[in-house]
């Protein structure tokens, strides 16, 4: 079973809650995905709109585990303050730690990320760092106390899939005991299946579901792909070869 900081889960799909056409479609997509964990954020609340209060009521109704993020933070200080606020609001020590280093690619800032992870782990947070696929950064995050790593497949919202399967495979091999999640950049369910076939423990998807023509159907499709990919990994796939190997036995073939 999938495990995050001692908690176990049946579904290996984590779903983001942003960019859906409506709250009702978001709710239907979450239910259709059968996911047990959704990501959320913190944003300024206005006293006239009170949009956050309505959103929170919807999340409580869905009853999934909440993984708050520090999306949009560009410094360790900002991310740490956001995490502290999230812990109070959501009553969880989980934090999806994002420290963005580049506005065009939304690429993580590895230096700020490690700095923030050290502070948050020392304060008892259970950190889910959104990171690139660099092994040295991964090592520093593990040293800081992270038991989960979330390398990107591709830039957030790009839908490009796994840009560097080699790096992801290497990371899996280097950290057999760390829970690894491909976070960001997936576009279609086959990308999720590919990540799972590499032995990743889970995937986190948002835009690919939320911006699909039918988000509810796409949520179901991603759930099926994640399950298929995991089954395939557990079934020990064959190695790729350069040359053909006949599958039909040659022995007994008639001479014609």
């Amino acid at each position, binding site marked *: 079973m999938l495990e995050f900081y001692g908690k176990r889960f049946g579904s290996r799909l984590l779903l983001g809650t942003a960019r859906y056409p409506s709250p009702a479609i978001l709710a239907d997509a979450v239910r259709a995905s059968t996911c047990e964990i959704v990501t959320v954020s913190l944003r300024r609340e206005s006293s006239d709109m009170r949009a*956050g209060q309505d959103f929170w009521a919807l999340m409580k109704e869905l009853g999934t585990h909440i993984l*708050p993020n520090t999306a949009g933070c560009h410094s360790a200080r900002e991310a740490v303050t956001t995490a502290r606020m999230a812990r109070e609001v959501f009553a969880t020590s989980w934090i999806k730690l994002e420290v963005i280093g580049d506005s065009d690619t939304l690429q993580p800032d590895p230096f700020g990320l490690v700095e923030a992870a050290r502070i948050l782990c020392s304060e008892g947070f259970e950190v889910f760092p959104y990171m690139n696929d660099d092994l040295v950064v991964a090592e520093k995050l593990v040293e800081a106390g992270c038991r989960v790593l979330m390398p990107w497949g591709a830039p957030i919202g790009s839908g490009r899939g796994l840009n560097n399967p080699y790096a992801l495979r290497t990371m899996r091999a280097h950290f057999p005991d760390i829970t690894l999640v491909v976070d960001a950049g997936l576009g279609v369910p086959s990308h999720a299946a590919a990540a799972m076939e590499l032995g990743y423990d889970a995937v986190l998807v948002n835009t690919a579901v939320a911006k699909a023509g039918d988000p509810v159907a796409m949520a179901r499709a991603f759930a099926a792909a994640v399950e298929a990919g995991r089954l395939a990994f557990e079934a020990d796939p064959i190695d790729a070869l350069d040359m053909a190997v006949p599958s039909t036995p040659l022995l007994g073939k008639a001479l014609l």
Partner: protein
Amino acid sequence: MKIVLNGKSHETASTDLASLLAEIDFADAIVATALNGEFVSVDQRDGVSLQPGDRIEIVAPMQGG
């Protein structure tokens, strides 16, 4: 006095953070607060006095990826 509330200038008679939240009808809302970039927990709010020019952030749950 004038403070900056969620990035906008705001005139308030409140002298502490808890009073400010009550003033804008957020006393029972699910929100977190920060003063000049530092987190202020629920328990600390009535002990935090406000000064002119203070930057207050009030955030709530929102959609996120």
